[in-house]
């Protein structure tokens, strides 16, 4: 049985994604009718681009684990997350 590793930092991209998902729902629900500053209204299309940006950020964050293989609390080794990037043991 390998050592459990309670390094929750490993799940940072997932946290970002989940937080971003929550933020999108909040934005959609509570966007003030009068708008904020210059942004008068938020249409559905721009929500899509915001979501895309979130996913992109998560991608960039997960680049941290390039060249690493980690046994996490879930024994999530990172080699598939950073699929396509050589993992050095």
């Amino acid at each position: 049985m390998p050592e459990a590793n309670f390094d929750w930092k490993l799940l940072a991209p997932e946290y970002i994604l989940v937080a971003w998902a929550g933020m999108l729902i909040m934005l959609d629900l509570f966007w003030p009718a009068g708008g904020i500053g210059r942004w008068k209204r938020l249409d559905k299309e721009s929500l899509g681009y915001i979501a895309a940006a979130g996913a992109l950020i998560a991608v960039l964050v997960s680049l941290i684990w390039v060249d690493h293989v980690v046994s996490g609390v879930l024994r999530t080794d990172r080699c598939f997350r950073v699929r396509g990037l050589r993992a050095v043991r």
Partner: protein
Amino acid sequence: MFFGLIGVFACVASARFVRDRLLHAGEYYAFILLAVVGANGMAAASELLTAYISLELLSFSLYVLTAYAKFDLRSNEGGLKYMLLGAFSSALLLYGIGMIYGATGSTHFGDIGRALSKDTGGIDEALFLGLALIMAGLGFKVAAVPFHMWTPDAYEGAPLPVTALISAISKSGGFALFLKLFAEAFAPKIDDWRYFIAGLSVATMVLGNLVAIQQSNIKRLLAYSSIGQVGYLLMGIAALSPESGSALVLHMMGYVVTNLAAFVCVIIFYNWTGKEEIKDFAGLRDTAPFLTWSLSIALFSLAGMPLFAGFATKFILFQAAADQDLLWLAGIAVTMSFVSLYYYLVIIKEMFLGKAEAAVSMPVPWVEYGALAVLVAGVLFIGLYPAPLLDWVDGSTADVFAGVGQAAVAGR
């Protein structure tokens, strides 16, 4: 990371679609991101319960998304079917996990592998049952024949960007898990399940490709063609070895990029016209040359034509299978990819030769075109110079196969 990229493209692609046709955009995007989380977890998990939870997260997001167009009957039907069958398969999977835990005393892939390699006798009933149930459960998720029944309806009913998302993320997530599970945990018993998977693979590619010929709706056609592709991918599992593992991952990347490109084309077209029958693509060459060429490239790539991703990745995958004494399987796969060329050519023929009914002036969607250009560039890149990609993939699969799996495979 790879799944995140899928998410980016899915969001960009759906933006305009959602504006025009759906309600509640916020939740919609949230679910896409959650699906990405699920797929990430599936690929990263090395423990059965984690894998199961991630898989459920992915599946539930997709169930909801499939039924998202709530005033469209087909969408509701597809969503319901997907959910019922999906829930059933999850139950099978969970039962299988229980069996495996009972037989080996662990849910960690590595420990299962170690337990199995110590056990030199025949496979016992509980283990066998568990293995079969897990295969069936995962087979549902990746839509392998005979567990594919939900696919065409879900694909047809779901809003188009969601169809693209299902075809990309649930397949790649499913196969990442498939590969890790079988390479790390079940590799010692490879002789017991190899021909079962090979049989699944043959059934999947034959049925997927032959039925696709009949289709007149482009979403259903792509659904069946993706079933066919699953057959090729299963071949990589059947021929389990470090080489076929990396070939599998490479083919999957090529497939996902290509399939996304194809779907983005269809989405753009649908945004313009609201139609999705193959005959509606007639004469597209005259109205939208860039779209036509991109879709042609994507389809040729799916059919495994050279210069594009499909050829290089298929060649490597089939060669890896042939290396493991599965030449007959590779032969069937090549024959089937020949069959698939026919129905792709039918679409291409419509676009280049058909006569458009009425010339519609279409706004040029720059963002979508940008995404499409990136995807097509990816298709060409994988097709022409896969060396760096294969190098990286090889490195990561080597890790998966390291340890127990490696020893078992080498000692076989």
